[in-house]
């Protein structure tokens, strides 16, 4: 279902230098309507910076981001810290988007937390906050959903449920999804493209279905719900402790066809 949709947003050769630090170099990213792109990478790889560049919160040092005309973005930040001194109910929080009560309730029903509509924001649990934030992102009628670590701090069963919800939203709204994953290997099963980032794009490709994957079965057994998939990295380079690319002798596994190498991979 993925790449026949229109390109919603594309960035070419994105370069980001903050102070003395090189955060991103030569990053290409493209998101189509109806496509789910998951961004993975180690800490400090520049995932959140790339998301901020895509959102227009940070200006890239070089390269540019092109957005489809009048692109509506629904953004779900990684964390929301509300001071307990601010008496704000979930409905009050969602009303800041300028929507009416009935639409707000619809969005809350969609994300499965309509029973919380009158609860104070600062009393919500982590998972509840995520779902309220997702409802808020939906209220913008997004063409593109940008989710920064949406399942952070949620257990695997909860993750599967959230992933299924995101997939349902994608199908209903026919929007594109850009998501940051906090895990290097487990991603959402419905992901069309995984981008592994470590300053540059290390590799990208399609995740494997989790139910077939021995690593996942070993961890969670057959009883675990699907919705989560494993992404197998096949890098042909390593990084030294500075993050610079070092050639590695290990040949790429020819049996894996689902990922593509970029020009930064330094191999034939």
């Amino acid at each position, binding site marked *: 279902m993925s790449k026949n949709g229109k390109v919603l947003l594309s960035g070419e050769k994105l370069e980001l230098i903050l102070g003395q630090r090189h955060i991103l170099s030569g990053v290409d990213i493209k998101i189509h309507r109806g496509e789910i792109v998951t961004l993975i990478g180690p800490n400090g790889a520049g995932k959140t910076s790339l998301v901020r560049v895509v959102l227009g919160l940070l200006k890239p040092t070089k390269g540019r981001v092109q957005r489809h005309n009048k692109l509506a973005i629904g953004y779900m930040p990684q964390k929301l810290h509300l001071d307990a001194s*601010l008496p704000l109910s979930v409905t009050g929080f969602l009303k800041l988007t300028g929507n009416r009560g009935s639409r707000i309730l619809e969005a809350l029903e969609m994300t499965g937390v309509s029973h919380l509509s009158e609860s104070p924001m600062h009393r919500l649990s982590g998972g509840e906050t995520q779902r309220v934030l997702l409802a808020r992102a939906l209220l913008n009628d997004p063409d593109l959903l940008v989710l920064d670590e949406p399942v952070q701090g949620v257990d695997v069963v909860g993750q599967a449920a959230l992933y299924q919800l995101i997939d349902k939203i994608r199908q209903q709204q026919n929007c594109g999804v850009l998501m940051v994953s906090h895990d290097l290997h487990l991603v959402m099963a419905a992901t069309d493209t995984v981008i592994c980032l470590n300053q540059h794009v290390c590799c990208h490709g399609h995740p494997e279905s989790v139910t077939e994957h021995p690593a996942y079965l070993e961890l969670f057994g057959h009883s675990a719900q699907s919705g989560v998939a494993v992404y197998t990295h096949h890098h042909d380079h390593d990084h030294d402790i500075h993050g610079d690319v070092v050639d590695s002798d290990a040949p790429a596994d020819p049996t894996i066809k689902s990922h593509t190498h970029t020009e930064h991979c330094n191999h034939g």
Partner: protein
Amino acid sequence: MPEFLINALIAGCGVALMAGPLGSFAVWRRMAYFGDTLAHSALTGVALGLLLSININLAVTLCCLLLALVLLGLQNNRSLTTDTLLGILSHTSLAFGLVMVGIFGEGRIDLYGYLFGDLLAANTDDLIMIGATCALVLPLLAWLWKPLLSITVHEELARVEGIKVAPVKAALMLMMALVIAVAMKVVGVLLITALLIIPAAASRRLSKTPERMAVTASVLGMVSICGGLALSFYYDSPAGPSSVLVAALLFCLAQMRKSDF
């Protein structure tokens, strides 16, 4: 009721009216120290007004506005925390004001009145100044209410949703500077933050929405002013500090109420 008391009531209630919503933002955004810094700079304004022989109200207002802009610019400086920067600026401007007033204001100026307020001496000029500030600040607050609340909840989310964060933030700081400049008359340089923070904090337990909290804070502020003036009238206590004490009492009373929100 004697005229000076009526003037004092109008002046005090006008300031408390604006201090309610602005104080609520100060509490939500943890800006108490920021308020202190602006307030202390008001004394520098007094000194400069004397030195340049311009209207002191005007000099104080300009000084507060200028400092608010400086603070806005300094927020992007990452080498020192805002806390430290405010600490430096706050006490430097207070010391500078005290030294200047000491040298140039000897005999011409009532330092005590500037430090602790001189509500009972509020004259027509002060009333006009406070009225004009109300006429500017209250509609602006109502107009910017939603964006202000949005950036308080999550700045980046607000930016993605199309709110121009920088101008909205600047407007909040400038409004705060204006109110502090006129509040100096009521409670004095050293107690302005109390008038902002205490009624807002007291109203937290009594409110379930931000709007309710802001309005309740205004009402509690006005009650404090009335109480302070009554104390001052019957027991000859200083009006500004008495109002702050009444506000603190209201805060304690509010804490007795159980809130599950």
